[in-house]
Protein backbone atom coordinates (compact mmCIF):
# COMPACT_ATOMS: atom_id res chain seq x y z
CA UNK A 1 0.00 0.00 0.00
CA UNK A 2 1.62 3.21 -1.16
CA UNK A 3 0.59 6.63 -2.42
CA UNK A 4 2.20 9.51 -4.26
CA UNK A 5 0.81 13.01 -4.04
CA UNK A 6 1.31 16.74 -3.93
CA UNK A 7 1.91 18.35 -0.55
CA UNK A 8 -0.25 20.94 1.20
CA UNK A 9 1.88 22.15 4.09
CA UNK A 10 0.59 23.78 7.27
CA UNK A 11 1.90 24.65 10.74
CA UNK A 12 1.32 23.53 14.33
CA UNK A 13 -2.01 23.11 16.14
CA UNK A 14 -4.23 22.92 13.05
CA UNK A 15 -7.49 22.58 15.02
CA UNK A 16 -10.85 21.02 14.19
CA UNK A 17 -12.56 24.43 14.02
CA UNK A 18 -10.39 25.50 11.07
CA UNK A 19 -10.53 22.03 9.46
CA UNK A 20 -14.33 21.88 9.62
CA UNK A 21 -16.10 24.85 11.29
CA UNK A 22 -18.59 24.04 14.05
CA UNK A 23 -21.37 25.94 12.28
CA UNK A 24 -21.56 23.25 9.58
CA UNK A 25 -21.66 20.28 11.93
CA UNK A 26 -25.43 20.19 12.07
CA UNK A 27 -26.23 21.46 8.58
CA UNK A 28 -24.07 19.20 6.43
CA UNK A 29 -24.36 15.43 6.50
CA UNK A 30 -23.18 14.45 3.02
CA UNK A 31 -19.44 13.68 3.10
CA UNK A 32 -19.00 15.09 -0.42
CA UNK A 33 -20.47 18.38 0.71
CA UNK A 34 -18.27 18.30 3.85
CA UNK A 35 -15.27 18.07 1.51
CA UNK A 36 -16.19 21.46 -0.01
CA UNK A 37 -15.47 23.11 3.36
CA UNK A 38 -12.26 21.25 4.25
CA UNK A 39 -9.74 23.58 5.91
CA UNK A 40 -12.02 26.51 5.05
CA UNK A 41 -10.92 28.81 7.89
CA UNK A 42 -7.21 28.05 7.37
CA UNK A 43 -6.74 27.99 3.59
CA UNK A 44 -9.66 28.98 1.39
CA UNK A 45 -7.88 27.62 -1.73
CA UNK A 46 -7.53 24.10 -0.40
CA UNK A 47 -11.01 22.71 -0.97
CA UNK A 48 -11.15 24.15 -4.50
CA UNK A 49 -7.75 22.94 -5.67
CA UNK A 50 -7.01 19.72 -3.76
CA UNK A 51 -6.60 16.62 -5.96
CA UNK A 52 -7.08 12.94 -5.22
CA UNK A 53 -4.18 11.45 -3.22
CA UNK A 54 -2.77 14.84 -2.30
CA UNK A 55 -1.04 14.73 1.06
CA UNK A 56 -1.48 17.15 3.95
CA UNK A 57 1.73 17.77 5.91
CA UNK A 58 1.67 19.67 9.20
CA UNK A 59 3.50 20.34 12.43
CA UNK A 60 2.61 19.39 15.96
CA UNK A 61 -0.82 18.48 17.33
CA UNK A 62 -2.75 18.21 14.06
CA UNK A 63 -6.51 17.93 14.60
CA UNK A 64 -6.62 19.29 18.13
CA UNK A 65 -9.90 20.51 19.58
CA UNK A 66 -13.29 18.94 19.23
CA UNK A 67 -14.09 15.27 18.67
CA UNK A 68 -16.06 16.01 15.50
CA UNK A 69 -15.04 13.36 13.02
CA UNK A 70 -16.23 15.52 10.14
CA UNK A 71 -12.68 16.89 10.44
CA UNK A 72 -11.34 13.53 9.27
CA UNK A 73 -14.26 12.80 6.94
CA UNK A 74 -14.02 16.12 5.05
CA UNK A 75 -10.31 15.58 4.37
CA UNK A 76 -10.84 11.99 3.25
CA UNK A 77 -13.64 12.93 0.86
CA UNK A 78 -11.66 15.92 -0.40
CA UNK A 79 -9.33 13.25 -1.74
CA UNK A 80 -6.52 13.46 0.81
CA UNK A 81 -4.56 10.20 0.64
CA UNK A 82 -2.66 10.56 3.90
CA UNK A 83 -1.70 13.10 6.53
CA UNK A 84 1.88 13.46 7.70
CA UNK A 85 2.49 15.41 10.90
CA UNK A 86 4.97 15.82 13.72
CA UNK A 87 2.16 14.68 16.03
CA UNK A 88 -1.62 14.27 15.98
CA UNK A 89 -4.21 15.03 18.60
CA UNK A 90 -5.48 11.72 19.87
CA UNK A 91 -9.16 11.98 18.97
CA UNK A 92 -8.31 13.05 15.43
CA UNK A 93 -5.89 10.12 15.20
CA UNK A 94 -8.69 7.70 16.14
CA UNK A 95 -11.22 9.34 13.85
CA UNK A 96 -8.90 9.18 10.84
CA UNK A 97 -8.06 5.51 11.41
CA UNK A 98 -11.74 4.73 11.94
CA UNK A 99 -12.50 6.40 8.57
CA UNK A 100 -9.73 4.45 6.86
CA UNK A 101 -7.54 7.55 6.36
CA UNK A 102 -3.87 6.63 6.99
CA UNK A 103 -1.69 8.87 9.15
CA UNK A 104 2.08 9.10 9.33
CA UNK A 105 3.65 10.47 12.47
CA UNK A 106 7.20 11.46 11.57
CA UNK A 107 8.82 14.55 13.06
CA UNK A 108 11.87 14.54 10.77
CA UNK A 109 9.91 14.12 7.55
CA UNK A 110 7.27 16.69 8.50
CA UNK A 111 9.98 19.25 9.16
CA UNK A 112 11.76 18.63 5.84
CA UNK A 113 8.89 18.64 3.37
CA UNK A 114 7.89 21.80 1.46
CA UNK A 115 4.52 22.86 0.15
CA UNK A 116 3.82 21.81 -3.42
CA UNK A 117 6.43 19.05 -3.71
CA UNK A 118 5.58 15.47 -4.68
CA UNK A 119 6.16 12.86 -1.99
CA UNK A 120 5.67 9.11 -1.85
CA UNK A 121 4.67 7.04 1.18
CA UNK A 122 4.90 3.28 1.56
CA UNK A 123 2.83 2.33 4.60
CA UNK A 124 3.92 -1.31 4.78
CA UNK A 125 7.61 -0.51 4.66
CA UNK A 126 7.28 2.60 6.82
CA UNK A 127 9.14 4.77 4.31
CA UNK A 128 8.49 8.31 3.12
CA UNK A 129 10.38 9.73 0.12
CA UNK A 130 10.61 13.46 -0.48
CA UNK A 131 13.04 15.96 -2.06
CA UNK A 132 15.27 16.00 1.00
CA UNK A 133 15.58 12.20 1.19
CA UNK A 134 13.93 9.06 2.55
CA UNK A 135 12.57 9.00 6.08
CA UNK A 136 11.53 5.98 8.18
CA UNK A 137 8.47 5.93 10.39
CA UNK A 138 7.24 3.23 12.80
CA UNK A 139 4.51 1.00 11.30
CA UNK A 140 1.07 1.20 12.92
CA UNK A 141 0.12 -1.45 15.54
CA UNK A 142 -1.51 -4.64 14.24
CA UNK A 143 -5.00 -3.91 15.56
CA UNK A 144 -4.92 -0.48 13.92
CA UNK A 145 -3.61 -1.85 10.60
CA UNK A 146 -6.42 -4.41 10.75
CA UNK A 147 -9.00 -1.62 10.97
CA UNK A 148 -7.36 0.26 8.06
CA UNK A 149 -7.20 -2.91 5.95
CA UNK A 150 -10.89 -3.62 6.56
CA UNK A 151 -11.58 -0.09 5.25
CA UNK A 152 -12.34 1.51 8.62
CA UNK A 153 -13.98 0.69 11.94
CA UNK A 154 -17.50 0.09 10.63
CA UNK A 155 -16.55 -2.56 8.05
CA UNK A 156 -14.28 -3.96 10.79
CA UNK A 157 -17.22 -4.08 13.24
CA UNK A 158 -19.41 -5.68 10.59
CA UNK A 159 -16.81 -8.42 10.21
CA UNK A 160 -16.63 -9.00 13.98
CA UNK A 161 -20.43 -9.14 14.30
CA UNK A 162 -20.53 -11.71 11.51
CA UNK A 163 -17.74 -13.86 12.89
CA UNK A 164 -18.28 -13.66 16.65
CA UNK A 165 -21.95 -13.11 17.10
CA UNK A 166 -23.39 -14.57 13.93
CA UNK A 167 -25.34 -11.38 13.21
Amino acid at each position, binding site marked *: MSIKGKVWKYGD*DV*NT*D*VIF*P*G*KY*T*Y*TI*TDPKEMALHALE*DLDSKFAKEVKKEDIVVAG*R*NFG*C*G*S*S*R*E*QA*ATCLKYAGVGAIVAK*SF*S*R*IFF*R*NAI*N*QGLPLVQCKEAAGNISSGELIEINFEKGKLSCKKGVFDFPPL*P*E*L*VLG*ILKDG*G*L*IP*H*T*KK*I*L*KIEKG*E
Partner: protein
Amino acid sequence: MGKTIVEKILSAHTDTDNLRVGDIIKARVDFAFANDITAPIAIKYFKESGARQVFDKKRVGLIPDHFAPNKDIKSAEQCKLLKEFAQEYEIENYFEIGKMGVEHALLPEKGLVLPGDVVVGADSHTDTSGALGAFAIGVGSTDFAAVMALGEVWLKVPSTIKFIYSGKLKKWVSGKDLILYTISKIGVDGANYKVMEFSGEVIKGLSMDSRFTICNMAIEAGAKTGIIEPDEITLEYIKGRAKRSFQIYNSDPDAHYEKIIEINVSKIEPQVAFPHLPENTKPISEAKGIKIDQSIIGSCTNGRIEDLRIAAEILKGQQVHSEVRLIIIPATQDIYLQAIREGLIEIFITAGGAVSTPTCGPCLGGYMGILAKGERAISTTNRNFVGRMGHPESEVYLASPAIAAASAILGRIASPEEVK
Protein backbone atom coordinates in the same frame (compact mmCIF):
# COMPACT_ATOMS: atom_id res chain seq x y z
CA MET B 1 5.65 -2.36 40.66
CA GLY B 2 2.45 -0.55 41.52
CA LYS B 3 -0.22 0.62 39.14
CA THR B 4 -1.93 3.92 38.46
CA ILE B 5 -5.69 4.23 38.85
CA VAL B 6 -6.09 4.18 35.06
CA GLU B 7 -4.00 1.02 34.65
CA LYS B 8 -6.18 -0.66 37.30
CA ILE B 9 -9.43 0.39 35.66
CA LEU B 10 -8.27 -0.77 32.22
CA SER B 11 -6.95 -4.09 33.59
CA ALA B 12 -10.39 -4.75 35.01
CA HIS B 13 -12.02 -4.03 31.63
CA THR B 14 -9.90 -6.10 29.24
CA ASP B 15 -8.89 -9.70 28.66
CA THR B 16 -5.30 -8.68 27.90
CA ASP B 17 -2.98 -9.87 30.69
CA ASN B 18 -0.13 -7.84 32.16
CA LEU B 19 -1.26 -4.62 30.64
CA ARG B 20 1.56 -2.28 29.67
CA VAL B 21 1.64 1.36 28.67
CA GLY B 22 1.50 1.59 24.87
CA ASP B 23 -0.44 -1.67 24.40
CA ILE B 24 -3.41 -1.45 22.05
CA ILE B 25 -6.33 -3.20 23.73
CA LYS B 26 -10.04 -3.70 23.45
CA ALA B 27 -11.79 -2.53 26.62
CA ARG B 28 -15.34 -3.25 27.81
CA VAL B 29 -17.45 -0.12 28.13
CA ASP B 30 -19.70 0.70 31.12
CA PHE B 31 -21.47 3.68 29.59
CA ALA B 32 -21.45 5.24 26.12
CA PHE B 33 -23.17 8.41 24.92
CA ALA B 34 -23.47 10.94 22.13
CA ASN B 35 -25.17 14.25 21.37
CA ASP B 36 -27.16 15.83 18.54
CA ILE B 37 -23.99 16.53 16.51
CA THR B 38 -22.26 13.18 16.91
CA ALA B 39 -25.15 10.71 17.28
CA PRO B 40 -26.81 11.13 13.85
CA ILE B 41 -23.67 9.97 12.03
CA ALA B 42 -23.19 7.17 14.56
CA ILE B 43 -26.78 6.01 14.05
CA LYS B 44 -26.18 5.73 10.31
CA TYR B 45 -22.96 3.73 10.87
CA PHE B 46 -24.58 1.57 13.56
CA LYS B 47 -27.25 0.52 11.07
CA GLU B 48 -24.61 -0.09 8.39
CA SER B 49 -22.70 -2.40 10.74
CA GLY B 50 -25.61 -4.82 10.69
CA ALA B 51 -26.07 -4.78 14.49
CA ARG B 52 -29.63 -5.68 15.52
CA GLN B 53 -29.54 -4.11 18.97
CA VAL B 54 -27.36 -1.94 21.21
CA PHE B 55 -25.02 -3.78 23.58
CA ASP B 56 -27.04 -2.69 26.65
CA LYS B 57 -30.14 -0.50 26.62
CA LYS B 58 -29.36 0.90 30.08
CA ARG B 59 -25.80 1.84 29.21
CA VAL B 60 -26.31 4.05 26.18
CA GLY B 61 -27.12 7.75 26.48
CA LEU B 62 -28.48 10.13 23.82
CA ILE B 63 -28.48 13.80 24.77
CA PRO B 64 -29.63 16.56 22.40
CA ASP B 65 -27.71 19.50 23.88
CA HIS B 66 -25.53 21.24 21.30
CA PHE B 67 -28.10 22.87 18.99
CA ALA B 68 -31.03 22.07 21.26
CA PRO B 69 -33.69 23.20 22.02
CA ASN B 70 -33.79 23.03 18.24
CA LYS B 71 -32.16 26.10 16.74
CA ASP B 72 -33.69 25.70 13.29
CA ILE B 73 -35.14 23.12 10.92
CA LYS B 74 -31.85 21.35 10.26
CA SER B 75 -31.03 20.93 13.95
CA ALA B 76 -34.62 19.81 14.53
CA GLU B 77 -34.10 17.04 11.97
CA GLN B 78 -30.88 15.96 13.73
CA CYS B 79 -32.54 15.84 17.14
CA LYS B 80 -35.48 13.91 15.69
CA LEU B 81 -33.06 11.19 14.58
CA LEU B 82 -31.92 10.73 18.20
CA LYS B 83 -35.47 10.45 19.49
CA GLU B 84 -36.54 7.97 16.81
CA PHE B 85 -33.44 5.84 17.29
CA ALA B 86 -34.00 5.81 21.08
CA GLN B 87 -37.58 4.65 20.53
CA GLU B 88 -36.67 2.03 17.95
CA TYR B 89 -33.87 0.48 20.02
CA GLU B 90 -35.54 1.07 23.41
CA ILE B 91 -32.66 3.16 24.72
CA GLU B 92 -33.53 4.19 28.26
CA ASN B 93 -31.34 7.24 28.64
CA TYR B 94 -32.67 9.59 26.01
CA PHE B 95 -33.14 13.06 27.51
CA GLU B 96 -35.88 15.19 25.97
CA ILE B 97 -35.85 18.98 26.26
CA GLY B 98 -37.08 19.79 29.76
CA LYS B 99 -35.08 16.93 31.23
CA MET B 100 -31.98 17.53 29.15
CA GLY B 101 -28.78 19.17 30.33
CA VAL B 102 -25.28 19.64 28.96
CA GLU B 103 -24.21 16.00 28.74
CA HIS B 104 -21.06 16.15 30.88
CA ALA B 105 -22.95 17.83 33.71
CA LEU B 106 -26.07 15.71 33.29
CA LEU B 107 -24.63 12.18 33.29
CA PRO B 108 -22.75 12.43 36.62
CA GLU B 109 -25.74 14.22 38.15
CA LYS B 110 -28.03 11.35 37.13
CA GLY B 111 -25.61 8.73 38.49
CA LEU B 112 -25.14 7.16 35.06
CA VAL B 113 -21.34 7.44 35.09
CA LEU B 114 -19.58 6.17 38.19
CA PRO B 115 -16.16 5.66 39.77
CA GLY B 116 -14.14 2.86 38.20
CA ASP B 117 -16.11 2.98 34.92
CA VAL B 118 -14.80 2.98 31.37
CA VAL B 119 -16.89 5.73 29.80
CA VAL B 120 -16.89 6.48 26.08
CA GLY B 121 -18.54 9.66 24.84
CA ALA B 122 -18.75 11.04 21.34
CA ASP B 123 -17.68 14.46 22.57
CA SER B 124 -14.24 15.71 23.46
CA HIS B 125 -15.23 16.90 26.94
CA THR B 126 -16.16 13.40 28.08
CA ASP B 127 -13.02 13.64 30.23
CA THR B 128 -15.17 15.66 32.69
CA SER B 129 -16.37 12.44 34.36
CA GLY B 130 -12.78 11.61 35.24
CA ALA B 131 -13.46 13.75 38.31
CA LEU B 132 -15.40 10.76 39.69
CA GLY B 133 -12.43 8.42 39.32
CA ALA B 134 -13.67 6.96 36.04
CA PHE B 135 -11.68 6.45 32.85
CA ALA B 136 -13.72 8.65 30.53
CA ILE B 137 -12.59 9.34 26.99
CA GLY B 138 -13.94 11.41 24.12
CA VAL B 139 -14.19 9.69 20.75
CA GLY B 140 -15.83 10.28 17.37
CA SER B 141 -19.14 9.11 15.96
CA THR B 142 -17.74 5.98 14.34
CA ASP B 143 -16.25 4.84 17.64
CA PHE B 144 -19.59 5.42 19.33
CA ALA B 145 -21.35 3.40 16.64
CA ALA B 146 -18.95 0.49 17.13
CA VAL B 147 -19.31 0.70 20.93
CA MET B 148 -23.10 0.63 20.64
CA ALA B 149 -22.77 -2.50 18.50
CA LEU B 150 -20.07 -4.36 20.45
CA GLY B 151 -19.86 -2.80 23.94
CA GLU B 152 -16.11 -2.43 23.56
CA VAL B 153 -13.62 0.15 22.33
CA TRP B 154 -10.07 -0.07 20.94
CA LEU B 155 -7.56 2.08 22.74
CA LYS B 156 -3.93 2.54 23.57
CA VAL B 157 -3.01 2.15 27.23
CA PRO B 158 -1.86 5.68 28.05
CA SER B 159 0.97 6.79 30.28
CA THR B 160 0.09 9.16 33.11
CA ILE B 161 1.42 12.53 34.20
CA LYS B 162 0.75 13.19 37.87
CA PHE B 163 0.06 16.76 38.95
CA ILE B 164 0.41 17.49 42.65
CA TYR B 165 -1.10 20.76 43.84
CA SER B 166 -0.04 22.17 47.21
CA GLY B 167 -0.32 25.46 49.06
CA LYS B 168 -3.25 27.74 49.83
CA LEU B 169 -5.61 29.09 47.19
CA LYS B 170 -5.97 32.87 47.01
CA LYS B 171 -9.41 34.42 47.19
CA TRP B 172 -11.36 34.01 43.90
CA VAL B 173 -8.99 31.32 42.58
CA SER B 174 -11.08 28.36 41.41
CA GLY B 175 -10.74 25.02 39.66
CA LYS B 176 -10.92 26.93 36.36
CA ASP B 177 -7.89 29.01 37.27
CA LEU B 178 -5.90 25.93 38.29
CA ILE B 179 -6.57 24.12 35.01
CA LEU B 180 -5.91 27.24 32.87
CA TYR B 181 -2.66 27.78 34.76
CA THR B 182 -1.70 24.13 34.29
CA ILE B 183 -2.43 24.21 30.53
CA SER B 184 -0.34 27.36 30.20
CA LYS B 185 2.58 25.55 31.85
CA ILE B 186 2.49 22.42 29.66
CA GLY B 187 0.89 23.74 26.43
CA VAL B 188 -2.06 22.61 24.34
CA ASP B 189 -0.32 19.36 23.42
CA GLY B 190 1.58 19.00 26.70
CA ALA B 191 -0.32 15.86 27.66
CA ASN B 192 -1.10 14.48 24.19
CA TYR B 193 -2.25 10.82 24.40
CA LYS B 194 -1.55 10.88 28.15
CA VAL B 195 -3.66 10.87 31.28
CA MET B 196 -3.51 13.88 33.61
CA GLU B 197 -3.97 12.63 37.17
CA PHE B 198 -4.78 15.58 39.43
CA SER B 199 -3.82 15.12 43.06
CA GLY B 200 -2.52 16.74 46.22
CA GLU B 201 -3.99 18.54 49.19
CA VAL B 202 -5.50 21.32 47.10
CA ILE B 203 -7.50 18.91 44.91
CA LYS B 204 -8.66 17.00 48.00
CA GLY B 205 -10.06 20.25 49.35
CA LEU B 206 -12.05 21.05 46.21
CA SER B 207 -15.78 20.46 45.70
CA MET B 208 -16.97 18.03 43.02
CA ASP B 209 -18.06 21.00 40.88
CA SER B 210 -14.50 22.38 40.83
CA ARG B 211 -13.09 18.92 40.16
CA PHE B 212 -15.38 18.49 37.15
CA THR B 213 -14.12 21.84 35.80
CA ILE B 214 -10.50 20.70 36.11
CA CYS B 215 -10.98 17.31 34.44
CA ASN B 216 -13.19 18.90 31.76
CA MET B 217 -10.26 20.85 30.32
CA ALA B 218 -7.62 18.08 30.38
CA ILE B 219 -8.45 17.68 26.67
CA GLU B 220 -7.27 21.26 26.10
CA ALA B 221 -3.77 20.03 26.95
CA GLY B 222 -4.30 17.18 24.47
CA ALA B 223 -4.82 14.60 27.21
CA LYS B 224 -6.60 11.32 26.64
CA THR B 225 -8.41 12.13 29.85
CA GLY B 226 -8.11 13.67 33.28
CA ILE B 227 -8.75 11.76 36.47
CA ILE B 228 -8.99 12.32 40.22
CA GLU B 229 -8.93 9.50 42.76
CA PRO B 230 -12.29 9.08 44.49
CA ASP B 231 -12.50 10.16 48.15
CA GLU B 232 -15.19 11.05 50.71
CA ILE B 233 -16.27 14.05 48.66
CA THR B 234 -16.77 11.80 45.61
CA LEU B 235 -18.74 9.23 47.61
CA GLU B 236 -20.89 11.94 49.14
CA TYR B 237 -21.71 13.15 45.61
CA ILE B 238 -22.49 9.62 44.36
CA LYS B 239 -24.74 8.87 47.33
CA GLY B 240 -28.35 8.67 46.23
CA ARG B 241 -27.41 9.08 42.57
CA ALA B 242 -25.70 5.81 41.55
CA LYS B 243 -27.94 3.68 39.36
CA ARG B 244 -25.76 0.56 39.66
CA SER B 245 -22.82 -0.83 41.65
CA PHE B 246 -19.34 0.56 41.11
CA GLN B 247 -15.74 -0.01 42.06
CA ILE B 248 -13.29 2.39 43.69
CA TYR B 249 -9.71 2.31 42.42
CA ASN B 250 -6.71 4.22 43.72
CA SER B 251 -3.18 4.66 42.40
CA ASP B 252 -0.51 2.67 44.25
CA PRO B 253 2.16 4.73 46.05
CA ASP B 254 4.82 3.07 43.87
CA ALA B 255 2.92 3.45 40.59
CA HIS B 256 5.00 4.52 37.61
CA TYR B 257 4.33 7.97 36.20
CA GLU B 258 5.81 9.37 33.03
CA LYS B 259 6.31 12.63 34.85
CA ILE B 260 5.37 14.21 38.16
CA ILE B 261 4.69 17.94 38.10
CA GLU B 262 4.37 19.80 41.39
CA ILE B 263 2.50 23.07 41.45
CA ASN B 264 2.37 25.44 44.40
CA VAL B 265 -0.91 27.32 44.10
CA SER B 266 -0.23 29.98 46.73
CA LYS B 267 0.90 32.61 44.23
CA ILE B 268 -1.53 31.79 41.43
CA GLU B 269 -3.90 34.64 40.56
CA PRO B 270 -7.20 34.21 38.74
CA GLN B 271 -6.31 33.42 35.11
CA VAL B 272 -7.48 34.61 31.69
CA ALA B 273 -6.72 32.68 28.48
CA PHE B 274 -6.24 35.08 25.57
CA PRO B 275 -7.17 34.32 21.96
CA HIS B 276 -6.75 31.94 20.25
CA LEU B 277 -5.50 29.05 22.37
CA PRO B 278 -6.30 27.96 25.94
CA GLU B 279 -2.55 27.99 26.69
CA ASN B 280 -2.27 31.78 26.11
CA THR B 281 -2.99 32.41 29.75
CA LYS B 282 -2.13 35.49 31.78
CA PRO B 283 -2.87 36.38 35.40
CA ILE B 284 -5.81 38.78 35.80
CA SER B 285 -3.45 41.58 36.85
CA GLU B 286 -2.06 41.57 33.29
CA ALA B 287 -5.43 41.16 31.60
CA LYS B 288 -7.50 43.99 33.01
CA GLY B 289 -8.96 46.66 30.80
CA ILE B 290 -9.79 44.78 27.62
CA LYS B 291 -13.23 45.96 26.48
CA ILE B 292 -15.85 43.23 26.04
CA ASP B 293 -19.19 42.92 24.25
CA GLN B 294 -20.42 39.71 25.81
CA SER B 295 -19.99 37.56 28.91
CA ILE B 296 -21.01 33.91 28.94
CA ILE B 297 -21.40 31.97 32.18
CA GLY B 298 -22.24 28.31 31.62
CA SER B 299 -21.20 25.18 29.66
CA CYS B 300 -19.91 21.75 30.68
CA THR B 301 -16.92 23.59 32.13
CA ASN B 302 -18.60 26.13 34.41
CA GLY B 303 -22.38 25.81 34.37
CA ARG B 304 -22.82 24.11 37.76
CA ILE B 305 -24.45 25.42 40.91
CA GLU B 306 -21.16 26.49 42.53
CA ASP B 307 -20.38 28.56 39.41
CA LEU B 308 -23.78 30.24 39.50
CA ARG B 309 -23.43 30.97 43.23
CA ILE B 310 -20.10 32.72 42.67
CA ALA B 311 -21.52 34.73 39.75
CA ALA B 312 -24.53 35.73 41.89
CA GLU B 313 -22.32 36.76 44.78
CA ILE B 314 -20.59 39.24 42.47
CA LEU B 315 -23.67 40.39 40.53
CA LYS B 316 -25.88 40.93 43.59
CA GLY B 317 -27.02 44.55 43.70
CA GLN B 318 -24.95 45.43 40.62
CA GLN B 319 -25.89 46.27 37.04
CA VAL B 320 -24.49 44.69 33.88
CA HIS B 321 -22.65 47.31 31.80
CA SER B 322 -24.94 48.98 29.26
CA GLU B 323 -22.84 47.78 26.30
CA VAL B 324 -22.47 44.17 27.43
CA ARG B 325 -24.67 41.10 26.90
CA LEU B 326 -24.47 38.81 29.93
CA ILE B 327 -25.83 35.34 29.14
CA ILE B 328 -26.08 32.77 31.91
CA ILE B 329 -26.80 29.15 31.07
CA PRO B 330 -27.31 26.65 33.90
CA ALA B 331 -25.90 23.32 32.67
CA THR B 332 -28.85 21.14 33.70
CA GLN B 333 -32.50 21.49 34.68
CA ASP B 334 -31.71 20.44 38.26
CA ILE B 335 -29.05 23.15 38.51
CA TYR B 336 -31.49 25.67 36.99
CA LEU B 337 -34.17 24.76 39.53
CA GLN B 338 -31.71 24.88 42.39
CA ALA B 339 -30.60 28.33 41.24
CA ILE B 340 -34.22 29.50 41.21
CA ARG B 341 -34.76 28.14 44.73
CA GLU B 342 -31.65 29.90 46.01
CA GLY B 343 -32.71 33.21 44.44
CA LEU B 344 -29.73 33.28 42.07
CA ILE B 345 -31.81 33.67 38.92
CA GLU B 346 -33.55 36.70 40.41
CA ILE B 347 -30.15 38.27 41.07
CA PHE B 348 -29.07 37.65 37.46
CA ILE B 349 -32.22 39.09 35.94
CA THR B 350 -32.31 42.07 38.28
CA ALA B 351 -28.73 42.81 37.29
CA GLY B 352 -29.71 42.83 33.63
CA GLY B 353 -28.45 39.38 32.63
CA ALA B 354 -30.22 36.95 30.28
CA VAL B 355 -30.81 33.39 31.54
CA SER B 356 -31.19 30.49 29.11
CA THR B 357 -32.45 26.94 29.34
CA PRO B 358 -29.55 24.41 29.33
CA THR B 359 -27.67 24.19 26.01
CA CYS B 360 -24.09 24.11 24.73
CA GLY B 361 -25.20 26.93 22.38
CA PRO B 362 -22.65 29.73 22.23
CA CYS B 363 -19.63 27.71 23.41
CA LEU B 364 -19.21 26.16 19.97
CA GLY B 365 -20.70 29.04 18.00
CA GLY B 366 -24.04 27.24 17.77
CA TYR B 367 -26.54 29.86 18.87
CA MET B 368 -27.75 31.80 21.96
CA GLY B 369 -24.91 34.32 21.89
CA ILE B 370 -22.92 34.41 18.64
CA LEU B 371 -20.24 37.06 18.17
CA ALA B 372 -20.22 39.54 15.28
CA LYS B 373 -17.06 40.57 13.42
CA GLY B 374 -14.66 42.32 15.77
CA GLU B 375 -16.64 41.50 18.93
CA ARG B 376 -15.02 40.19 22.11
CA ALA B 377 -16.36 37.86 24.77
CA ILE B 378 -15.22 36.79 28.18
CA SER B 379 -16.46 33.26 28.66
CA THR B 380 -16.39 30.47 31.23
CA THR B 381 -16.33 27.90 28.40
CA ASN B 382 -13.35 25.82 27.36
CA ARG B 383 -12.09 26.89 23.92
CA ASN B 384 -11.05 30.18 22.36
CA PHE B 385 -10.00 29.02 18.89
CA VAL B 386 -10.43 31.28 15.86
CA GLY B 387 -14.13 31.59 15.06
CA ARG B 388 -15.17 29.36 17.96
CA MET B 389 -18.03 31.58 19.16
CA GLY B 390 -18.92 33.22 15.88
CA HIS B 391 -17.17 35.38 13.29
CA PRO B 392 -13.56 34.38 12.47
CA GLU B 393 -12.55 37.92 13.46
CA SER B 394 -14.19 37.76 16.90
CA GLU B 395 -12.28 36.97 20.08
CA VAL B 396 -12.93 34.76 23.10
CA TYR B 397 -11.16 35.14 26.46
CA LEU B 398 -11.56 32.20 28.84
CA ALA B 399 -11.89 32.68 32.58
CA SER B 400 -13.75 31.70 35.75
CA PRO B 401 -17.36 32.66 36.57
CA ALA B 402 -16.02 35.25 39.05
CA ILE B 403 -14.07 37.09 36.35
CA ALA B 404 -16.88 36.72 33.78
CA ALA B 405 -19.35 38.26 36.25
CA ALA B 406 -17.05 41.12 37.27
CA SER B 407 -16.22 41.83 33.62
CA ALA B 408 -19.92 41.94 32.70
CA ILE B 409 -20.44 44.70 35.27
CA LEU B 410 -17.46 46.82 34.25
CA GLY B 411 -17.65 46.25 30.49
CA ARG B 412 -14.01 45.19 30.38
CA ILE B 413 -12.01 42.27 31.65
CA ALA B 414 -11.93 42.82 35.38
CA SER B 415 -11.01 41.18 38.66
CA PRO B 416 -13.79 40.39 41.14
CA GLU B 417 -11.80 42.54 43.59
CA GLU B 418 -12.77 45.60 41.57
CA VAL B 419 -16.49 45.20 42.23
CA LYS B 420 -16.53 43.53 45.63
